[in-house]
């Protein structure tokens, strides 16, 4: 989530497109910077253009520039008295006037995808079953380098050591990783020191010690219950404690949590240009 969005509940980014369309278009005088996006999604910083805003709506932006040979998606940064931030723009029209070129477009496209707050931190991707950034870290770093994004922190994820897929974690057998285990309920008969499972004591509806054959045992006076160790139903391993076991959802590998591949994933922040704020303020 983008910080600005979360601070302003009536943000444009939460409204459906049809509602955003109904909001008025406003004239706006603010300097802007236009950054073209390269095919490899990195910013084409060398070819950036100074521009200024003409008008703004919740769905689009109009700009004016001295020269414009732009084509394809761009990212526009605006900084004025009432408005500040970056947005992605898909060019829709271009108008040559004496001394300047006017152009405009709809908020969206690749630039919007890159700046989307959901894409700037850890994100689960269904297809490849990965916990990772949507865009590669190098792309986001390139945007951070030119100042559009800021790196704000690092997330740590535990991944499958074999395929780097996403695992689930649960308690399981230390030997084979199985989640099928039980506990033995044992009885300690005080008089003869015998310790055995409850079912060995059950005899015609009463408790009888299989070692010394004392009958009618009463809990507390004659015996106490003892919880035995966990017993794995798959490999017959015994242990008082279970291990946290990871199981990869992709390649099915079972591994102790200590063997998980630890991956550091940075998170980013962007100041978003929020047209709704401008629209409502006017």
């Amino acid at each position, binding site marked *: 989530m983008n910080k600005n969005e979360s601070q302003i509940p009536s943000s444009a980014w939460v409204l459906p497109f049809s509602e955003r369309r109904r909001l008025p278009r406003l004239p706006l005088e603010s300097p802007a910077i236009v950054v073209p996006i390269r095919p490899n999604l990195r910013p084409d910083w060398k070819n950036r253009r100074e521009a200024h805003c003409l008008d703004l709506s919740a769905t689009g932006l109009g700009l004016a520039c001295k020269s414009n040979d732009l084509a394809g998606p761009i990212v526009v940064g605006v900084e004025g008295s009432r408005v500040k931030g970056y947005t992605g723009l898909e060019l829709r029209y271009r108008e040559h006037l004496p001394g300047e070129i006017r152009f405009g477009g709809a908020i969206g496209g690749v630039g919007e995808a890159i700046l989307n707050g959901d894409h700037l931190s850890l994100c689960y991707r269904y297809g490849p079953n990965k916990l990772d950034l949507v865009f590669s870290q190098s792309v986001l770093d390139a945007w951070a380098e030119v100042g559009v994004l800021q790196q704000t922190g690092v997330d740590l994820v535990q991944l499958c050591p074999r395929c780097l897929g996403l695992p689930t974690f649960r308690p399981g057998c230390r030997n084979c990783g199985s989640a099928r285990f039980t506990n033995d309920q044992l009885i*300690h008969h*005080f008089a003869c*020191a015998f310790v055995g499972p409850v079912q060995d004591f059950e005899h015609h509806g009463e408790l009888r010690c299989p070692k010394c054959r004392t009958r009618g045992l009463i809990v507390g006076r004659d015996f*106490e219950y*003892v919880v035995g*160790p966990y017993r794995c139903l798959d490999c017959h391993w015994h242990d008082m404690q279970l291990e946290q076991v990871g199981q990869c959802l992709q390649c099915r590998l079972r591994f102790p949590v200590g063997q998980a591949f630890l991956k550091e994933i940075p998170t980013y922040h962007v100041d978003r240009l929020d047209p709704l704020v401008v629209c409502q303020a006017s």
Partner: protein
Amino acid sequence: MLIDWTHWLSVRHPDELLAFLWALILIDSTRYALSKTVMCLTDMAGDFYRWIRGERRQVEFTHCPTVCLIVAGYNEAENIRFTLESVWGSYPKLEIIVVDDGSQDGFFSQALQFAQSHPGVLVLRMPERSGKSPALNLALRYSRAEIIVAMDADSQLSENAIWEIVQPFADENIGVVAGSLSVRNAFTNLVTWLQAYEYLHSIFVGRLLSARLGILGIASGAFSAFRRTALEQTVGWDVGPGEDLDLTLRIRKAGYEIAYAPYAECQTNVPTTWRALIKQRFRWERSGIVRHHFRKHLDFADWSSANFRFGDFTVWFDVFFFNFLCMIGIVVFFVRFFLIDKPVDWWELLLTLYLCYLLFELIQVLAACIYSNYLRRDAAICAIFVFAPIYQIFLLWIRFIATIQEALFRKSFEDNFAPARVRESTWHW
């Protein structure tokens, strides 16, 4: 004083001396000093014979069954790591089960920590302190090995101890193998030194002799090994104290033999104060002869029983005669000597007795040194032997009082070795 004594001795007729010393020479020395001498000489002759034939005596371990080592302890958080480190990896087919008998000092977490980094270690826990026997029985349930080795959590095993203790099991008739105990804190003070000498004398060599004579009747709880089938037949340990003695006798009753592995050495810390020593010995003695040989296992001496075996009877008789009758005899002797006879030459007589005893003690010291693997250490321990007779008398009085207490009041069933709920519930043999 010594001149006085030599003078006194020179005017004595040998018959007079013999009349005073006959019991020591005929009974005590035959059972202990002379038989050890015979054993030593036989072994040395055997060694000499092999040496002449050019055969080298080499240590070779040929029997390698699966082993489960059970370490039961209560509030031993300090020691458990060292104990486990001394055994882990010392034998190829070894599983280790640590049982925490409801400790309150982090014993369980220490053991768990060790288990997490060392595969093959299972840590179990009793919910409350229950005594050693149920803890061992709990572990027995989760062990799978052919041979079960039980040891204390405050002890450490010497190199190859597990290899040594499993070798006798190659013989199918062996149900229990007793390990040897040595004192780790031997030179802390006089108390521990005397105990170290006692262990060397009565456990290291004493049990070697008993085992040769086929009358070994105890495998110490601190370190002994059991055949799994024998333990299953006797359904594990009974309520202690004295559970080690009891189990050994029950396994004997089940038809198995007891062996001794003198070089399977377990090092243990002994009490460092007289007070603690007296307390420990009262516990041992109360749960010894009267409770087990005279009450619970009196059937060893029952000639009319269908299960009667002469071998078992000799085990029982050895304890009855040398630990009980001789004790009574010595007590009677002292009472008569000091209270009734009151001879004028009392100190000369006692000195003669003492020196005579010392002579036999010296023979046993030599035996210990001949069999010792650590000659330098054991020779140093033996240097205390001049005090041994006095120490033996001290222990004898403890045994005498403890035996009377047990015979009259069943004191061993008040011992905090087992918690109250267990003591109150069990049969007071």
